[in-house]
């Protein structure tokens, strides 16, 4: 099987188990969105997948090869891009350097393509990343992650704090990345942005998957029921 597979994953901080028995898979070219209220373990799940946190059980496969247990930078170099939720930029370095440091291999064709999606970033190349506004920083993170991931991209609330008028840019960028065969895993609160993109959805609650399936006309209601609770 290709793409990203997560099997019965459990993880947490110290002795506290935050995520229990989560399984999911993202095929190449597929977009899967994870929804859930604050603090249900979405970010923890992603950190577990990325090797930041040790897994208490289960495993993660990339194109059929296990990657769980490997160190984060090894996972990233295997082709998995990750955009963390917090301000994950190097604010003291320029935008250009931020992109350059993340470049995997010499080829930056994809970066060019992504910069076309976010022309504002191209204008700010020589500026220190810390001087970008919050939304621009998110754009930079999107460019960096989507351009350098060769197999899987994992985006944690990439449009949090982004003004509604700009959501389209982000959707466009994600679609584009997906179309070149990336498996994309989104964690979102923003239904309006994520639902139109996603092929499959997952709803988490208390560290477990409580609802999952392909996105259909009735998905919105299904999801909202869990979010409102």
């Amino acid at each position, binding site marked *: 099987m290709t793409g990203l597979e997560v099997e019965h994953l459990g993880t947490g901080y110290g002795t506290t188990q935050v995520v229990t028995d989560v399984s999911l898979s993202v095929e190449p070219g597929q977009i899967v969105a994870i929804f859930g209220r604050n603090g249900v373990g979405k970010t923890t799940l992603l950190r577990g997948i990325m090797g930041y946190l040790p897994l208490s059980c289960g495993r993660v496969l990339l194109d059929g090869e296990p990657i769980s247990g490997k160190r*984060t*930078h090894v996972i990233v170099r295997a082709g998995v891009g990750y955009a963390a939720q917090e301000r994950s*930029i190097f604010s003291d370095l320029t935008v250009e*350097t931020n992109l*350059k*440091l*993340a470049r995997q291999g010499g080829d930056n064709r994809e970066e060019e393509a992504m910069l076309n999606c976010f022309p504002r970033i191209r204008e700010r190349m020589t500026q220190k990343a810390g001087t970008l506004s919050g939304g621009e920083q998110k754009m930079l993170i999107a460019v960096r992650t989507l351009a350098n991931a060769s197999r899987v991209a994992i985006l944690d609330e990439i449009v949090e704090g982004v003004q509604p008028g700009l959501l389209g840019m982000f959707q466009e960028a994600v679609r584009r990345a997906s179309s070149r065969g990336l498996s994309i895993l989104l964690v979102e609160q923003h239904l309006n942005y994520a639902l139109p993109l996603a092929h499959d959805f997952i709803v988490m609650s208390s560290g477990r998957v409580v609802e999952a399936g392909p996105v259909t006309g009735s998905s919105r209601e299904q999801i909202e029921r869990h979010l409102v609770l």
Partner: protein
Amino acid sequence: MTITILNSFFGVAVLILSAAGLVVVFGLMKVVNFAHGEAMMLGAYVALIARDWMPFWLGIVVAGIGIGVLGVVIERLLIRRLYRRILDTILATWGLGLLIRELIGAFDPGYSSLDAPFDAPVSILGSDFSAYRLFIIAFAAVLLTAMWVIERFTSLGKTVRAVISDPDLARGIGINVDRVYALSFGTGWLLAGVAGALLAPMVTIAPTMGGNFLVGGFLTTILAGPTLLGIGPAAGLLGGTGGIFATIADATTASIAVLVVAMIAMKIKDSRSGR
């Protein structure tokens, strides 16, 4: 006059040599290595021991590699736990320096001597000047150039800065953080080892010799600031001050003058940096 100028250059060169490793570690990693003087002392000891086995120059190489490897080990055991606790790194490395000094002191109370590979003075514009001093000046110039090349033409420095400012994020974009840490620190110690070995023929080798280099190296480093290149002007300022005051007044006045100049320069630099 020639000699006075050359002596000042030499003073600057010694500061550059003793600060180079510190600047790498502090500038790139924001770690103040107060065991730096002891790393230099170990370098001198390696050169001293190597004298019986190999030519002087090979001994320098061995000192550099040996102390560099030791630096990597120390980074693993000690420094790695202290990143971003800048004040604690001062304390921990100071304790480490004390430990190294005492360990060496338990075996060797000191006062060994190592001869320079070439000792005879050469004639420059009619005055005799130590050939080995000239070599040290030249070496410092080469070192400075090499640092400039690294800073300007490679992304090494930026990678390290990225790693220090946010290691989790650096991992997340595929940087092998552990290795960057270890190599930067190891490089700092390697430079210290080479400097210690190179300066060994100029001094008396003893467990306590490191302290003599640390004060000058430390001040130069703090003034040099975050870039590797700052070391040039910083060493020039302090070494020049020392040279001038040693000539017009005496050595004690010179050392006090250097401290005062360092404090003033530090204040100016700090208020300019705006943070």
